[in-house]
C-alpha cells in the first residue's frame, strides 16, 4: 500500500494550496504539535492527512537529494529548521545519563547538568542539546561523521567529549566533561591580572587551539564563555568542533533568520564567517584576535549590540579595525594593574597593536595563517624579541610569491612545479633562529641602552620595531664605538631586519660587519664566513639570485678551506646555493650540492630522517628540470616512504611531496597518475585549508594548467573559475594567483571558441598585474604573450603580432631560453604565422624552440 499525494487524492490547485498551508504549519510545530495537527486533519479529511504525512516523510529525506546547486548567494537561504522552543528536559534519561537542571542556554542550544545514573561515582557531566536539524536522519548522519574526530581530540586543555547521540524526538546532544570554571575574561579581571599574565594565559589557549587544528578540527565559535579557567588556573576549551555540526552541506554556516539561532557569535566571527562563506582555521585565528583584544582592553573591537544581521556583517566586513591601545580606557587600565592610563596605553601600542591587528585582518590569507604563528609572536613579545606582525605591502607579497612559486610565475602564470622553496623556508628559519637566539638578549640591551630616548609615540602604528631599528642604525653610524662592538651590533641589526623582511637593510648591515671581520683587530675567518652566509640569505630572500650566488660561491670556498665548519652552516650553504643555482637555471651545478646535503643529513641526523625531506624534494625538482624525470620520481617515492616511516604527521610536507610528484608524473607522461596525484593534493589541501584558501588556489592553478595542456579546456576552466570566484573574498586583487587564474581561464576559453571572452580575462589579468609589479617587468610581457595567443585564436593576427614581438624581445633578453615563457612566446609566434599564412616566418620561430622532451 503506497501513500500517494497525487494518486489517492484528486488534487486540484485549491487542495494543493491547502496542503502546502498545512505542510508549512506542521514544519513550524514541534513533534507533539505536528501529531495533533495530523489527528485534526485526519478527523475531517483522511486522504488529505495521508498526503500530508507522506509529504512530511519525504521532507525528512529531501535535504541531500534535491539540493539547490551551489551558488554564491545560496548561503542566504540555508536556514530551514527553526528551534522549536526549549523543551523541559529535566529528568530525561539518555542512555546512562540522567539529565538534571538547565545550566545555560545559547545560540547553539541548551546546556544541562547530568550524572551517570548507573555509576556509583555519580560522574558529573554537561549535556548540550543542539538546535534542531531539518531532519533527525540528517542530524544523526552528521553526528556520526564528526563524533570520531571529536572523540580523538584529547588534550588537557580541551574539555573531553564523552558521549552523544540523538534524542527520540530528533534532538542531537553531546555529553561533555563538566568544567567548573569562569570565562577567561572574567577570571582575569577578577584577579586584576597584568598584561603579561593575561598573555601567558592566552598562549595556553592558543596551544590548545593549535593542537585541535593539527587534527583538522576548527572550533568556529571561540569566545570567553567557551574558554573557561578553573580555580587552579588551568585553561579549558569547550565545544570544540560542535559548531561544525551546524554547518550546511556546502560548508557554510547555517545563519540567518534570527540571530538567536546563529551557529556562532557575531562579536567573535570573522568577516568570511559573517558572510556565510566556508571557514578554515584562520577563522579561529580571528576569534583569538578578538579574545586578545578583549583581554587587553575589556571590550571587543566592534560593538554590534542592537544591529541587524546585515548591519553586523557590514561593520565586521568594512569597518576599520581599531587598535587596542586607543580603545583602552581608565577602568580597564586599572584592571590591568597599570599605574596610569598612559602607561597602559604605551604598553599596548606598537607590537601588541600590530599582533592584534594581524590576527584581525579582514582577509583570511593576510592573517596569521597558523595559530602557531600568533602564539609565537606573543611568546616573542613576552621575551622582549621583535614580533613578526607588520603591515603587508603588495610588492612585498609579490616578491614573496615569486620566490615561493618561482616556476609557476616564471611561466607567466603557467604553473609547473609548486612549492620548490620547502627547504629554503626551513633554512631561512634556521638562519633566523640562529641569529636571533644568539643575539636576542643583546638586541634588547642595545635597544634599551642606546635608544632609551626613542619616542615610541612618534612612531607609526604597525612599524615600531622597524622604526626603532632604523634609528638604531643611524645612531650607530653617528656614535663612535669600538670595531668589535660595531661588528656585533651590525650583525644583530642585520638579523633583526631579516626577521622583519627588510632585506636591503639587512644587506647593508651584514656587508659592513663582513668588511670589519676581514681585517684588522676584528679579523675572524669563521665569523666572516658565517656573516657572508647571512648576507647570501639576505640577497636570496630579496630575490637577487645572481648576487646571492656570487656571495655563496665565496662562502663555499671559505668553508672548504676552514676545517671545522659546523654541519648546520655547511648544510645551510649547500641547500641555499643549490636553490640559487637552480633559480639561475644552473641545475647541473646545483645537483651535486644537493646530494652532498642529503648525505650530510644522513651523517649528522641519522635519527631524524624527516629533516632531509625538504632537501630531497628540491633534489627531485632539480632532477626533473634536468629531464631526469625517472630519478626525480624515485626520489619522491623514497621521500614518501621516508615520510610514512617516520609517521611525520605533517600534512603540509606530505602535500608538498605529492604536488611535486604530480608535476613530475606529468612530465613522465603518466598523465592519469599525475591527474590522480593532483586530485589527491587538492582534496587534502581542501580538507585542511577549506575550499577557498589561497594555497589551494595555487594547486588548482597547477591542475588547471595540467588539464589545459591535455586539451581538456572545459574542465580546466571549471577549476580556474573557482579561483576567479575567490576574488574579493579569499583572494584580493593583489594576490598573484588571481591574475594567473584569470590568464589560464582566458587561454582555455580561447580554445573553447570563446576568444573574445578569453581576451577579456587575459586583459583583466594584465590590469591586475600592472598594479602590482613595477613598469617594464617581464611579467607584463609574459601576460601580453598570452594575450597574443588569444588574439591569434580570434584571427586578429596583426594585433597579436604587435604584442608578441615586443614581448619576445624582452623575455628572450631577460630569461634563460629554456624556460616556459620564452618557449611559449616562440611557440605562439610560430602558431601565429602559421595561421596567418606566413610559413617562412613560422618556420623561423619554430626553429628556435627546444624540442619537447
Amino acid at each position: 500500500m503506497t501513500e500517494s499525494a497525487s494518486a489517492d487524492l484528486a488534487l486540484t490547485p485549491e487542495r494543493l494550496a491547502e496542503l502546502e498551508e498545512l505542510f508549512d504549519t506542521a514544519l513550524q510545530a514541534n513533534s507533539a504539535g505536528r501529531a495533533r495537527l495530523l489527528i485534526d486533519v485526519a478527523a475531517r479529511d483522511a486522504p488529505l492527512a495521508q498526503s500530508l504525512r507522506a509529504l512530511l516523510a519525504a521532507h525528512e529525506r529531501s535535504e541531500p537529494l534535491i539540493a539547490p546547486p551551489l551558488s554564491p548567494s545560496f548561503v542566504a537561504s540555508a536556514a530551514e529548521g527553526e528551534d522549536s522552543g526549549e523543551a523541559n528536559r529535566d529528568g530525561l534519561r539518555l542512555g546512562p545519563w540522567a539529565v538534571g537542571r538547565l545550566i545555560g542556554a545559547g545560540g547553539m542550544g541548551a546546556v544541562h547538568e547530568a550524572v551517570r545514573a548507573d555509576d556509583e561515582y555519580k560522574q558529573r557531566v554537561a549535556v548540550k542539546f543542539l538546535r534542531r536539524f531539518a531532519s533527525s536522519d540528517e542530524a544523526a548522519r552528521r553526528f556520526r561523521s564528526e563524533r570520531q574526530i571529536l572523540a580523538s581530540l584529547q588534550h588537557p586543555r580541551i574539555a573531553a567529549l564523552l558521549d552523544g547521540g540523538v534524542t527520540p524526538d530528533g534532538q542531537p546532544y553531546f555529553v561533555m566533561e563538566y568544567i567548573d570554571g569562569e570565562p577567561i575574561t572574567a577570571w582575569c579581571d577578577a584577579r586584576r591580572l597584568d598584561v603579561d599574565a593575561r598573555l601567558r594565559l592566552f598562549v595556553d589557549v592558543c596551544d590548545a587551539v593549535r593542537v585541535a587544528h593539527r587534527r583538522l578540527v576548527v572550533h568556529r565559535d571561540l569566545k570567553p564563555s567557551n574558554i573557561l579557567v578553573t580555580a587552579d588556573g588551568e585553561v579549558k576549551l569547550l565545544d570544540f568542533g560542535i559548531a561544525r555540526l551546524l554547518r550546511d552541506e556546502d560548508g557554510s554556516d547555517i545563519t540567518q533568520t534570527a540571530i538567536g539561532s546563529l551557529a556562532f557569535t557575531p562579536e567573535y566571527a570573522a568577516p568570511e564567517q559573517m558572510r556565510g562563506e566556508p571557514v578554515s582555521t584562520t577563522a579561529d585565528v580571528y576569534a583569538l584576535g578578538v579574545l586578545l583584544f578583549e583581554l587587553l582592553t575589556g571590550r571587543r573591537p566592534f560593538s554590534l549590540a542592537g544591529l541587524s544581521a546585515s548591519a553586523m556583517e557590514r561593520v565586521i566586513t568594512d569597518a576599520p579595525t581599531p587598535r587596542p591601545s586607543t580603545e583602552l580606557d581608565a577602568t580597564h587600565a586599572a584592571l590591568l594593574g597599570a599605574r596610569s592610563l598612559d602607561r597602559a596605553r604605551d604598553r599596548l601600542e606598537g607590537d601588541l597593536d600590530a599582533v592584534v591587528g594581524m590576527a584581525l585582518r579582514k582577509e583570511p590569507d593576510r592573517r596569521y595563517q597558523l595559530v602557531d604563528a600568533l602564539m609565537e609572536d606573543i611568546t616573542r613579545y613576552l621575551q622582549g624579541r621583535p614580533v613578526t606582525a607588520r603591515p603587508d605591502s603588495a610588492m612585498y607579497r609579490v616578491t614573496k610569491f615569486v620566490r615561493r612559486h618561482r616556476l609557476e610565475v616564471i611561466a607567466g602564470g603557467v604553473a609547473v612545479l609548486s612549492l620548490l622553496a620547502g627547504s629554503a623556508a626551513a633554512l631561512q628559519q634556521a638562519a633566523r633562529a640562529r641569529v636571533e637566539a644568539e643575539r636576542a638578549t643583546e638586541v634588547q640591551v642595545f635597544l634599551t641602552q642606546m635608544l632609551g630616548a626613542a619616542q615610541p609615540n612618534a612612531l607609526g602604528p604597525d612599524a615600531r620595531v622597524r622604526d626603532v631599528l632604523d634609528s638604531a642604525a643611524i645612531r650607530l653610524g653617528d656614535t663612535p664605538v669600538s670595531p668589535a662592538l660595531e661588528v656585533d651590533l651590525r650583525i644583530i641589526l642585520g638579523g633583526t631586519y631579516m626577521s622583519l623582511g627588510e632585506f636591503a637593510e639587512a644587506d647593508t648591515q651584514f656587508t659592513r660587519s663582513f668588511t670589519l671581520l676581514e681585517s684588522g683587530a676584528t679579523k675572524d675567518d669563521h665569523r666572516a664566513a658565517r656573516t657572508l652566509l647571512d648576507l647570501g640569505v639576505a640577497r636570496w630572500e630579496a630575490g637577487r639570485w645572481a648576487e646571492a650566488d656570487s656571495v655563496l660561491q665565496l662562502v663555499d670556498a671559505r668553508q672548504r678551506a676552514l676545517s671545522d665548519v659546523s654541519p648546520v652552516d655547511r648544510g645551510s650553504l649547500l641547500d641555499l646555493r643549490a636553490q640559487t643555482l637552480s633559480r639561475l637555471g644552473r641545475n647541473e651545478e646545483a645537483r651535486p650540492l644537493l646530494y652532498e646535503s642529503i648525505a650530510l643529513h644522513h651523517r649528522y641526523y641519522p635519527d631524524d630522517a624527516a629533516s632531509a625531506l625538504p632537501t630531497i624534494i628540491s633534489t627531485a625538482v632539480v632532477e626533473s628540470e634536468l629531464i631526469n624525470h625517472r630519478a626525480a620520481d624515485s626520489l619522491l617515492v623514497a621521500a614518501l616512504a621516508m615520510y610514512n616511516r617516520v609517521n611525520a604527521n605533517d600534512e603540509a610536507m606530505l602535500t608538498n611531496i605529492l604536488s611535486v610528484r604530480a608535476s613530475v608524473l606529468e612530465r613522465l607522461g603518466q598523465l592519469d597518475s599525475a591527474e590522480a596525484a593532483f586530485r589527491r593534493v587538492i582534496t587534502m589541501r581542501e580538507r585542511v585549508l577549506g575550499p577557498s584558501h589561497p594555497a589551494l588556489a595555487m594547486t588548482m592553478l597547477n591542475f588547471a594548467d595540467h588539464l589545459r595542456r591535455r586539451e581538456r579546456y572545459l574542465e580546466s576552466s571549471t577549476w580556474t573559475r573557482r579561483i576567479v570566484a575567490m576574488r574579493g573574498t579569499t583572494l584580493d586583487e593583489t594576490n598573484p594567483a588571481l591574475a594567473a587564474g584569470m590568464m589560464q581561464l582566458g587561454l582555455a576559453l580561447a580554445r573553447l571558441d570563446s576568444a573574445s571572452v578569453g581576451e577579456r580575462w587575459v586583459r583583466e589579468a594584465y590590469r591586475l598585474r600592472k598594479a602590482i609589479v613595477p613598469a617594464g617587468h617581464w611579467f607584463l610581457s609574459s601576460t601580453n604573450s598570452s594575450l597574443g595567443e588569444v588574439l591569434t585564436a580570434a584571427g586578429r593576427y596583426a594585433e597579436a603580432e604587435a604584442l608578441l614581438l615586443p614581448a619576445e624581445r624582452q623575455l628572450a633578453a631577460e630569461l634563460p631560453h629554456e624556460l616556459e615563457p620564452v618557449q611559449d612566446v616562440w611557440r605562439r609566434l610560430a602558431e601565429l604565422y602559421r595561421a596567418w599564412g606566413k610559413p617562412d616566418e613560422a618556420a623561423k620561430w619554430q626553429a628556435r624552440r627546444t624540442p619537447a622532451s
Partner: protein
Amino acid sequence: MTASEGDITAALAELQAGRPGAADYVAELVLGELHRLAESAMRREVDGHTLRPTELVDEAFVRLIGAERVSWQSRAHFFAVAATTIRRLLVDHARRRRRTKRDFGARVTLDEALVAAEGPSLDLIALDDALDGLARLAPRQARVVELRYFGGLSVEETASVLESSAATVKRDWTFARAFLLHALDDDAQTSTASAGTRT
C-alpha cells in the same frame, strides 16, 4: 560565436525592465551557447562522470557576459531564462540516452558532496514529469524549483525574479521539494511493482 557582448548586455537590461521579446532573445542566445557547451561536455561524458547543470549555465554566463560586472538582478534574470533552457536540454539528453542505453534514465548527481560518495541520484526524466505535474497544480512552486534547481538561483534571486518574498520562496521550495520527492518515490514503487507482476 553568436551575438556580440553588447547585444546580450543590452538584452539583459531590457529583460530586467520587462521589455517583451527580450526573454526570447536571451533564451535564443543562451540556448545556442548551452547546446554547444552541453554537446562538448557530454561527448566527454564517460561512465560515472557526473554533469552538474549549474556548471553549464555558469559557463554559458561567462561566455556570453564575460568578466563584466553585471548587476546581480540582471544576472538573476539571465539564470532564470537559462533555467528553463538547461532543464529542457538535460531532459532531452536523458531521453536520448534512455533510448540508446535502455537504462533507468540519466543519473545526474545534483549534489557535489554526493559525487565522491556513491550517493543516491535522481531520475531526471521522472523529475521532469513530476515537475510538469506540479506545474499544473501550482505553477509558482514549480517555477521556484526550476529556478533554484536548474538555474542555481538563490532564494533572494528567485524572489526577485518572481517578484515575491524570500519567505514565500523558501516555503514554496520546501514544499515543492517534498512533493516532488514523494512523487518520485511513487513512481519508483509503481515501476518496481509492475515489473514484479510481469515476471
